[in-house]
């Protein structure tokens, strides 16, 4: 059984698939890699000449997804976090964060603001809400027992700032 949930703002149709550039990163599920994942994403996305705010939003969304894979997906076990970032058209970035961890039973509930399964860890339960509001589209696909894939798409606003 695979569960899926998509939340979309802005455009309704999927952008045409025309991959301009791509990076794949595989990181062990150690918390020090949360910052590494942010830095690498930041460098890669910078080729689109994003505004400071757009870059901050993307770094934050990546941080949330990678942290979730490490904290919830793998819990205290070791595993690999798979990150793929694609530049689709002149202004669109798609980020995929995947783990082979425990998976999510009820994605809709997990995505509710303030919902957390780990209140002792001082979590606010706002990770998915951050991803959803800082990116244009958020899709979560999960299979309990096999893992979770989070896909986030953002189209940068300024048409003058384009892929060179």
């Amino acid at each position, binding site marked *: 059984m695979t569960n899926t949930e998509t939340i979309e703002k802005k455009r309704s149709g999927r952008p045409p698939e025309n991959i301009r550039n791509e990076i794949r990163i595989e990181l062990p599920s150690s*918390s*020090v890699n*949360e*910052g*590494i994942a*942010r*830095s690498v994403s*930041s*460098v890669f996305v*910078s080729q689109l000449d994003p505004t*400071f*705010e757009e*870059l*901050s939003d993307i*770094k*934050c969304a990546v*941080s*949330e997804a990678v*942290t979730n894979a*490490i*904290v919830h997906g793998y819990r205290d076990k070791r595993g690999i976090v798979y990150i793929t970032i694609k530049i689709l058209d002149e202004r669109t970035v798609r980020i995929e964060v995947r783990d082979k961890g425990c998976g999510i039973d009820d994605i809709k509930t997990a995505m509710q*603001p*303030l919902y957390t399964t780990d209140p002792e*860890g*001082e*979590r*606010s*339960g*706002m*990770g998915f*809400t*951050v991803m959803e*509001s*800082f990116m244009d589209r958020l899709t979560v696909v999960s299979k309990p027992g096999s893992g979770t894939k989070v896909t986030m798409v953002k189209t940068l606003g300024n048409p003058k700032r384009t892929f060179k």
Partner: protein
Amino acid sequence: MNSGMRSSKAEAVSTIDGHTMIITLSGDIDHHSAKRIRGQIDSDLFIKRPKRAVLDMSAVEFMDSAGLGLILGRIACAEKIGCRLTLLSPSPQVMKILDLAGAGRFIEIKQK
């Protein structure tokens, strides 16, 4: 300040000004750094037991939802010792996250 390409080490430094403890946060506040920062702030609060504490956010370069958890946890911790916590000068990026959680309902947020 770095250009955002590199993550910078998070720190919490406390000073006392009369009855007020000023806790200056800096660097990147994420899940990785939050645990260490939390321990540091809590031990400072429990040792000094101030009446008021100000969490100066102006030097925070990055914060995600782990930072929210850190702030909410510190409000609870301060309450236990009868201390009122205020947030000072979060950046617009940090403010966006605080607003998502409606943090203004739980804590006073001031600008320098």
